[in-house]
């Protein structure tokens, strides 16, 4: 009996449609987040993450509807991030069918948000999303905001320690340097976070080949999030699981009962 590593596809949702290149043309209508969620579920995804990048409030309403419709047919954990500024935003998402929420920029500008969410709903609902890059801060890693476009001057490790005291269930660690490079996860960053944190760490950014996934696990990650490589079909979820299973990691096999 062992806890399995988790493979988590991430879908960027804007105004109710999946954006950021998808290439599922032979499989489905690539833009429908509910269909994609169901497909990834059937392929063995262990969780799903929706990142709402809508700029408008009507777009956010649409995301609630997407979450509702996904919860109708997908029975694995669903995390929703993007634009969450208050405990009532969280309540609306949980009522729609989300199991967890991720916060980033709003928590940096107002750290009390973390305690407000974890006091109301339990720290297990809260994923701290940390977009970090290498910089001349104490630990050598700085937190960025607005999708990596703005530096915050905040040291990533200090921020994680502060947020952990306020109550978080896990950390989604995005390397802004590695993101999109396909040169592998930032292993030093994963090790540094593992060293100071005792909540699960989800590695994100940089996956390009199968050994990148096992390298991230060896560095201390508990779960692996990826977007483009799954959307473009470079690897299917089962390819990653087969590779990791053969390498001796515990992976969940689909139910065949």
């Amino acid at each position, binding site marked *: 009996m062992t*806890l399995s590593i988790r493979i988590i596809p991430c879908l960027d949702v804007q105004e109710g449609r999946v954006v950021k290149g998808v290439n599922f043309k032979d499989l489905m209508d690539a833009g429908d987040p509910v269909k994609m969620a169901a497909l990834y579920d059937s392929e063995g995804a262990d969780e799903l993450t929706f990142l709402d990048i809508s700029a408008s409030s009507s777009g956010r309403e649409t995301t609630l509807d997407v979450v*509702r419709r996904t919860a109708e047919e997908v029975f694995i954990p669903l995390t929703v991030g993007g634009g969450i500024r208050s405990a009532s935003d969280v309540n609306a998402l949980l009522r729609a069918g989300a199991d967890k929420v991720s916060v980033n920029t709003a928590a940096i500008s107002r750290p009390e948000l973390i305690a407000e969410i974890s006091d109301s709903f339990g720290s297990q*609902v809260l994923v701290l999303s940390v977009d970090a890059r290498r910089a001349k801060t104490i630990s050598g890693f700085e937190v960025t905001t607005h999708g990596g476009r703005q530096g915050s001057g905040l040291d990533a490790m200090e921020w994680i320690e502060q947020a952990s005291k306020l109550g978080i*269930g896990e950390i989604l660690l995005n390397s802004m340097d590695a993101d999109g490079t396909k040169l592998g996860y930032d292993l030093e960053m994963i090790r540094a976070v593992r060293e100071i944190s005792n909540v699960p760490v989800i590695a994100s950014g940089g996956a390009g080949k199968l050994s990148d996934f096992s390298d991230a696990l060896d560095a201390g990650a508990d779960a692996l999030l990826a977007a483009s490589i799954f959307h473009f079909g470079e690897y299917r979820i089962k390819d990653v699981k087969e590779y990791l299973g053969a390498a001796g990691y515990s992976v969940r096999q689909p139910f065949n009962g």
Partner: protein
Amino acid sequence: MIAILDYGSGNLRSAQRAFAASGADVVVTSDEKICLDAKGLVVPGVGAFQACMRGLLAVNGDEIIRARFAADRPTLGICVGMQILFASSSESSRDGSILPGVGMWNESIARLSAPVLPHMGWNTVESPKNSVLFRGISEESFYFVHSFAAKESDAPVVTWSEYGERFVASAEDGSLSATQFHPEKSGGAGLRLIKNWVESI
């Protein structure tokens, strides 16, 4: 009809959908009479033990659970909805208050001894042959999110899982059943377990 007890805890929509997928009629309610009379009652629960207990007491959930057990009516606790069935938990709230559990089972809930908490993700469950919940399910993984658990149980049917140490993954005691994991979030294996329970009631 199956009633899901609404006492302000968690994602009830997923639970409603997962139980409805077994073909049952499902209502989410805190109405005492409906909860007492329902063919099956589901007691969900996420977050802190004390907060859940407070919410449960506010809707007389403790008395509903006791009355149903006395009348041999099936009840299923999930996650913290399982933990509150025990006598107590060592998880204190931020204000330091300690509330006892409903006390259907005598053991206590304690923190898991593991370097990384919460225990979050899919873990395999060792299922015994005489289990109603696990009929047709062997060596499957279920989705867990928790930092506290029962380390022992006198219930007639107990399944175990392991994270840092062995803990009780589920318990069946006559009409009272409970799972530490979330069957409503555990894909096909979870839906099968829910169907097993629904068909047994």
